[in-house]
């Protein structure tokens, strides 16, 4: 028998792993809620450009006269920003930890890899989403990047952009990435907060993650395609 003569690995410091995972999960669930509200807002454009602009205006005047203008909007923005920083920081810390846990890689490759492709794309896919979020804000919020000119009306901005094919393509690709991230993300978040404690529960969680991801992707893609094919002008 081989006895233990190997040197002990260096002890690791930092927040507990499950705590980091929980930060990723809780901020992730917060994003899902945000994204659902965002999608509801986008779909207002099907009712009409006035409804859409009014919705955008309401976001700025929400809570008035009790709250000053844009206060709700800024609270939401700051919460989201803090969550994005926490989500990315915690998931990247876990990525680094995983790398340190196996510094020598396997020479043999599995013939069948069981992990699903979308589950393996969480880290790179997540970073791609981060790049998209930055682009998206520069595009529609600050209008630093314009597809087809700048407009004061939010509905005009959206419609002018999505009459351009490459903008539709870009947003479609981004939504596919979002859908992939959520397909595994919702499942993972439920695992991490401890909801999956039986085989039946696992099935229910799978169902919810597939349903929610599909609803979100389809819901976000309806306006761009409706505009591109001329149903909304």
């Amino acid at each position, binding site marked *: *028998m*081989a*006895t*233990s*003569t*190997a*040197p002990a*690995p*260096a*002890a*690791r410091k*930092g927040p*507990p*792993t*499950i*705590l*980091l*995972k*929980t930060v990723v999960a809780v901020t992730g669930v917060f994003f899902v809620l945000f994204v659902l509200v965002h999608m509801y807002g986008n779909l207002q454009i099907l009712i009409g450009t006035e409804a859409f602009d009014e919705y955008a205006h309401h976001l700025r005047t929400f809570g008035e006269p009790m709250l000053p203008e844009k206060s709700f909007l800024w609270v939401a923005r700051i919460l989201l920003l803090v969550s994005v920083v926490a989500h990315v920081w915690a998931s990247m810390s*876990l990525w680094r*930890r*995983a790398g*340190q*846990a*196996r*510094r*020598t*890689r*396997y*020479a*043999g*490759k*599995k*013939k069948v890899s*069981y*992990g*699903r492709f979308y*589950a*393996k794309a*969480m880290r790179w896919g997540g970073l791609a989403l981060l790049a998209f979020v930055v682009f998206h804000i520069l595009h529609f919020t600050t209008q630093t990047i314009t597809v087809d000119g700048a407009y004061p009306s939010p509905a005009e901005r959206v419609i002018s952009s999505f009459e351009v094919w490459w903008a539709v393509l870009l947003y479609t690709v981004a939504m596919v990435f979002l859908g992939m991230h959520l397909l*595994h993300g919702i*499942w*993972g978040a*439920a*695992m*991490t*907060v*401890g*909801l*999956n*404690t*039986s*085989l039946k*529960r*696992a099935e229910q969680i799978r169902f919810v993650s597939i349903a929610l991801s599909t609803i979100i992707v389809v819901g976000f893609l309806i306006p761009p395609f409706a505009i591109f094919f001329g149903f909304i002008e």
Partner: protein
Amino acid sequence: MRISLKIWRQDGPADDGRMVDYRLEEVSEDSSFLEMLDLLNEQLIDKGEEPVAFDSDCREGICGMCGVVINGEAHGPERTTTCQLHMRSFDDGDEIIIEPWRADPFPVIKDLCVDRSSFDRIIQSGGFISANTGSAPDAHATPVPKEDADRAFMAAECIGCGACVAACPNASAMLFMGSKVTHLGELPQGQPEREARVLQMTAQHDLEGFGGCTNLGECSRACPKGIPLNVISQLNADYRRAGYGGRD
């Protein structure tokens, strides 16, 4: 059958190690994977070479001592332990790549043997119950609901082989910990130490340098005992109930 082998050889913990090629003729399909390695070692000894070091004990799939990564899969292509794998699972002329469990908390001692005392330290930190010794209590003194007993038994099947860590892309030991936490946590005897158990075991897990679970499920598919992924969620649930380690 004839096979070609690529085996990880490493003289000791400090050695860099390398893959070495071997060929074996006339291997019986009915021999076990470890018997195939025994055959190789006999030939190496005949030639005056150092035999390949690998671990095994019961060779019945119950002790958890054996375990190597075969063509990238922990315990090889079947859902069983390496000792219960047979050469009929391979084809004549196959190339078989054999490596040790790869995880920094499982340092290689020699060739295919790794040091799994990090698992022992995790168990010592909380994977037990405290019971008074003396005469055994009556079997029906503490009733346990059937479903709880079944789940405890399912989780208790873990033999501590470490395949879950070897298969995990993050080298996480959460399936192993989850099975211990579920096994003891489903039973009345496990309740008094339930919070302390999950906190101490996970703290030790982190200290040893294992990675964090990303809920992929590679562990559960490699596990020779088929421990389901939901024991990890149970571990997380117990950790949450214990206050995320923030409470004393």
